[in-house]
């Protein structure tokens, strides 16, 4: 069992306009283990994405106090890619588009770099796995030959985030508003992908401001976030 632990986390960003440092997270505490499903809910602008990005290691967010630990190891000195290889995954609210790199090539590279000690996954095995996951997510083969997220619709981008998660198989995945902009059908597909991953070796943290998603992926714990703090924690009934 792995543990992700956020203690008294304070995070600031430099405002793009006045360049002044602004405190967004004001003492967040959160502990989760593999095998668990957590949800963070809260209104827009309370710092949910800031928390996800800080855990992942986005250099725009500065920890001023507190810590993030993965199995007791402090993450603050680790770069984004090191954290990813240690088992963290963030399905981003706004995935970027990269022209000229195919989705397939990117996913294959990502799968292989996160498998360090086991060596690269043989291509046949990789393709079989990819095919299986595409099937679960109702995605066509063609999506993997297209350039990474380039020209993807909002829903396609979200599915592609889940596809990457399913291929990379992290210990902990943070899904930042994976449900936004999805119709019910797409939402069900995405939920199917996430539920398929659930196991004692996988923990998921869903960030959403709609209760809807939680009808399809049932959380063990729900946290309510307001103004940079988690103000309430409870079981699934808290979301209602």
């Amino acid at each position: 069992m792995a543990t992700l632990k956020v203690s008294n986390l304070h995070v600031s960003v430099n405002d793009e306009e006045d360049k002044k440092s602004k405190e967004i997270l004001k003492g967040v505490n959160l502990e989760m283990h593999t095998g668990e499903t957590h949800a963070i809910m809260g209104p827009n602008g309370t710092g949910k994405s800031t928390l996800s990005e800080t855990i992942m290691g986005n250099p725009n967010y500065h920890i001023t106090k507190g810590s993030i630990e993965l199995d007791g190891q402090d993450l603050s000195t680790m770069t984004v890619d090191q954290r990813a290889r240690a088992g963290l995954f963030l399905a981003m609210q706004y995935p970027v588009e990269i022209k000229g790199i195919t989705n397939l090539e990117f996913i294959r590279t990502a799968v292989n770099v996160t498998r360090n000690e086991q060596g690269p996954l043989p291509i046949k095995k990789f393709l079989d796995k990819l095919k299986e996951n595409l099937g679960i997510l109702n995605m066509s083969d063609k999506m993997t030959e297209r350039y990474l997220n380039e020209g993807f619709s909002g829903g396609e981008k979200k599915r592609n985030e889940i596809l990457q998660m399913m291929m990379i198989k992290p210990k902990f995945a943070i899904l930042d508003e994976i449900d936004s902009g999805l119709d019910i059908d797409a939402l069900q597909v995405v939920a199917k992908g996430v539920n398929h991953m659930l196991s004692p070796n996988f923990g998921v943290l869903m960030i959403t401001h709609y209760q809807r998603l939680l009808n399809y992926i049932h959380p063990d714990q729900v946290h309510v976030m307001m103004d940079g703090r988690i103000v309430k924690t409870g079981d699934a009934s808290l979301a209602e």
Partner: protein
Amino acid sequence: MNGIKHAVLDPKFVSAAKFDQEPDWLSEMRNQAFEKSQDLPLPVFAKVNYSSWPLLEFSTKKQADLEIPKSVKDQLADYTFVNLGNRNIKNELANFLSQGVILCSMADAIKNYGDLVQKYLYQFAIDPNEDRLTAINLALMNNGTFLYVPDNVQLKDPIKLLTIQDSRQEEMFIDHTLIVAGKNSRFNVFQRTETIGDIANPAHLTAEIIADQDSHVQYNSLDCLGPKTYAYFNRKGHLKEDARIDWAMGIFNNGSTIADFDSDLYGVGSHTEMQTVAISTGRQTQGLDTQVTNYGRHTEGNILQIGVLLDSSTLIFNGIGKIIHGAHGSKAQQENRILMLSPKAHGDANPILLIDENDVIAGHAASVGQINKKQLYYLMSRGLSKEVAQRLVVRGFLGVVLSNVPIPAVREQMVAMIERKLQNDPESK
């Protein structure tokens, strides 16, 4: 080392360049061009100062034929036609013979197909009177390739040319490729250039493509000349009615380069796509001008130049779109994009539109920028190290042109070349 600006050429170079049993008409052309060259100005590459480059530091030493090195032998199987210095060492013309295709060295072409060569050589595409370097290239041409595809011949397999500068000794290298596409012909040419040996010889590489009515030529090139080679390139297409030339060129030379790529859209309805990718590394300077001139009505020319800079290198793209009065309904678009991976590099993208006609659609886009941090972060968040992520972003940036290279093996070669250039980069580590 004598800069080109003050170089005075000895006429002995003209006699040294002559082919065996050269006909008078050619010698006459050379002599005239040589005389004229003294008065013609050097070509201008905006924002590139090459006046100190030893581009005319030729040698007339009598050369020994050196043996073919293993590195070259190993590549022979991949090409249809290979010139090592001024020797032709492979020709698989037999595969195309039944269709009347001619493929031979310039020396053989002059000997065996003199009339045909005379009809096209420096007649339609490159004008020897344009500047000093075009004149010198005609006067001193000492090797080359001739490809003639007759009317209505459509070749499925690409013709793959390997042109090697042999710098294992002092050697003059002034290479001219002449490609004639007959009416309604259709084919694909790939030309790779490289240098063996490490003597500092300049290289001059020119190519003319004459595309007759309704022909469609795809010309792909991959230039990888050596670090000690100062190079001048001039590739020019002449397009007749409804002809089309698609150019996709990878400029991956290791030394300093000036290059002039042009298409003249004479025929009504002719069309060209001119795409270039370039990487500059080390202290290298590369200045690339790509020009499309719309003469005919309803012609279309699109330019796409994409480049990456590392270290303290320089890369200048000048994109020139010129529309002549009377070319109604023409289109000229261009895009020049430069990515700088080092703060010490110097990159510039200059679109130049010269339009003398109202009824046209023309436009341009240009950018010079650093690597996109959000893209880098996204890739790294999936476990890719910074170096791998950066290489992927760069490859993606260049990939827009690469994906238009129709021969998979060529595309792979280009990708391998890019990887190699990026991996040798001390800055990105």
